[in-house]
């Protein structure tokens, strides 16, 4: 019991210090600025954005794709690690589940922001064409939100029960909330069996659903006959990219949480080393798919493809393209091959570069293609031939990213970021092993 209390002290919810409060206020300020910009967008219409006839998908859609990608690894990686019973997963699975929930919720909100008339959202259901990937997207995102929430919630039940007891005297109101959330968890064999069955089902379910989600996201693009999107390779390309975005986000958040909550004894260099290997693998797979995506069109060099690739390699989008490819992917992948590259601080820098690269990667997938239609752009003002997001778009996109971080911050603040009961069980097993050894 003393061991559990010690774990709760280390891993349980704690009030923010000054840095935590400043961080939260900062995020809220960015969110408020974005909400004001969004209200103005609602009043004035999409003309406040720089999206026009040709660049009709801009920063909102690339941001949406980024969120969907990030949500994937949080859930699928965790599910795979759970199903394969990897014991080293314990310290970071919950953080991954939290990232998944925050990302997929914000993906859903971002797609609504992109709609000029969100009041017509119901029409997506009422007039749904079941052949359209957009309809599949409308179905899969709420489904994935619910499954991600369940994946976060099921393993939390024993921890809620522990927190209920822990705060019973010091904070009765909080204890009551945790008590309700624990669903009268007593740790009985029946409850354990039911919880285990539930987690097992979710872990199996979330893998195909996660793959379907990424596939639909890719098909939103590849089913339209456009240069740069018309590829049978797109779904696996998106899935591998989602691994990269998700694992790198996870590493960055783990580093910050570990530092802020002083969890060095729980999340060790060993865990970073494992995550580093995982991220390196994800990066190399993604590099392989990138070579496929760009090299084959470069070889066949159909006219429209050649113009598109020229823009990416040497034209207007050359800087983000090479930044994403070299700084956001190739260099981190190579550094992560070395043990020194998998140290926590180095991993933080690398993961932030990869996250940044992942975000811009979506931007260069979405925008340049739209500006290269098969028929030449004509009959529109000169400014419509290019696209760069307006202030409204930056503010709103910044707000969605801040909102995702705010959700993560809120959940990290109020939930045990490392499963307490499971950690206690693992420690007990290790102690038993030590005592039984001759």
């Amino acid at each position, binding site marked *: 019991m003393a061991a559990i209390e010690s774990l709760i002290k280390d891993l349980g919810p704690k009030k923010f210090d000054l840095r935590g409060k400043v961080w939260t206020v900062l995020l809220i300020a960015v969110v408020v600025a974005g909400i004001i910009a969004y209200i103005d967008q609602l009043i004035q219409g999409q003309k406040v954005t720089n999206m026009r006839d040709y660049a009709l998908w801009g920063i909102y859609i690339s941001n949406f794709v980024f969120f969907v990608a990030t949500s994937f690894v949080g859930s699928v990686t965790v599910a795979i690690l759970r199903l394969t019973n990897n014991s080293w997963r314990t310290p970071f699975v919950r953080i991954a589940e939290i990232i998944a929930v925050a990302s997929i919720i914000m993906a859903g909100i971002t797609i609504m922001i992109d709609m000029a008339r969100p009041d017509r959202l119901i029409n997506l259901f009422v*007039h*749904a*064409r*079941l*052949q359209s990937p957009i309809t*599949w997207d409308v*179905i899969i995102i709420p*489904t994935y939100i*619910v*499954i991600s929430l*369940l994946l976060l*919630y*099921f393993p939390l*039940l024993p921890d809620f029960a522990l927190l209920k007891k822990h705060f019973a005297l010091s904070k009765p109101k909080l204890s009551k909330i945790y008590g309700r959330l624990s*669903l*009268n*968890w*007593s740790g*009985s064999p*029946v*409850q354990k069996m*039911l*919880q285990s*069955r*539930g987690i097992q*089902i*979710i872990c199996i*379910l979330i893998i195909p*659903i996660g793959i*379907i989600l990424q596939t639909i996201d890719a098909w939103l693009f590849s089913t339209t006959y456009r240069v740069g999107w018309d590829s049978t390779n797109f779904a696996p390309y998106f899935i591998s990219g989602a691994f990269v975005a998700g694992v790198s986000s996870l590493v960055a958040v783990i580093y910050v949480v570990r530092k802020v909550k002083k969890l060095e004894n729980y999340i060790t260099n060993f865990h970073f080393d494992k995550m580093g290997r995982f991220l390196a693998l994800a990066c190399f797979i993604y590099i392989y798919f990138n070579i496929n995506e760009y090299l084959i069109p470069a070889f066949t060099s159909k006219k429209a493809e050649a113009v598109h690739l020229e823009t990416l390699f040497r034209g207007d989008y050359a800087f983000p393209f090479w930044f994403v490819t070299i700084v956001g992917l190739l260099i981190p992948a190579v550094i992560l091959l070395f043990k020194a590259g998998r140290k926590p601080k180095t991993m933080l820098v690398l993961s932030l570069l990869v996250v940044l690269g992942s975000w811009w990667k979506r931007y260069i997938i979405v925008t340049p293609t739209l500006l290269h239609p098969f028929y030449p752009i004509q009959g529109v003002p000169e400014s419509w031939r290019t696209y760069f997001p307006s202030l409204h778009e930056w503010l709103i996109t910044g707000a969605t990213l801040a909102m995702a971080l705010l959700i993560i911050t809120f959940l990290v603040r109020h939930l045990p970021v490392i499963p307490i009961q499971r950690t206690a069980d693992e420690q007990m097993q290790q102690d038993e092993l030590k005592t039984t050894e001759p």
Partner: protein
Amino acid sequence: MKISRYIQSALVIAFLVAGMPSLLGQSQEKHRVRLKADYIKHMDARSYLDIKASARINKQTTDIGGIELLVVNEIDDEEIELGTLTTDQKGEGVFALDLNGLKADSLNTYSLSVSFKGTDSLRRASRTVQFKDAALVANLVTRDSVHYIEAVLKDAVTDSLLVEQNVKVQVQRLFAPLVLSEEINLTDEAGTILVAIPEGIPGVNSKLTIETVLEDSDDYGTVKAILDAAVGVPIVDESTFDERTLWAPRNKTPIFILLFTGLLVVGTWGTILYLIRILTKIAKH
């Protein structure tokens, strides 16, 4: 006093000078209407006048729509009003004729006048059309496995054969007819033309609608004989309009999409409901 008179006179002159151009302008703005009227006869169908009204306004030919035109059958000094028509937005109008009700002169020539009485901005105008009644009979004949259109042109009143008249043979198409005959294809002494129909012309159910046309003749106007002949290559309808396809409307969703998506949705949400049931069971224990 004298000065004020001068001022008054100057003002009157200035007013007249200033007002003159607008007065003149009003009279200049009255535009001349051009009327065009062609007699067209479809054999075994209807005969009509095809009328078009236009005017030159601001150096541009402009269609004059919504004006009323009077059609009169003129014979010697007699004028018989046949009726009126109003032009449409394109300045066009069709006036149906019943030749049995018309009177011809001693040379069997019909004379019809189309007139416009004018408005404040448009001058009065008229156009006279003269024509005789011709009969064009077209038939499909086959010789040595080659299909031909054989047509005979006669004067409908005197029944005399019309020779050296240019008669075209063409197939009706969506945008413009496909001409089969030579540019100049004159009737012979028997008032006949013979035009071969090339193989391989596509038609719905192999049906070709073939027009034999005496076009814009000075004496007889335009006379058309239309004939349906099953001598074309059948058009295979490749439209997927009524099929269940990935690009069809939502009421024609392919069955496999309905089944696959439906099973996925039901399977996933069924499992989610089962998971929620597990949660309620946990709460009860």
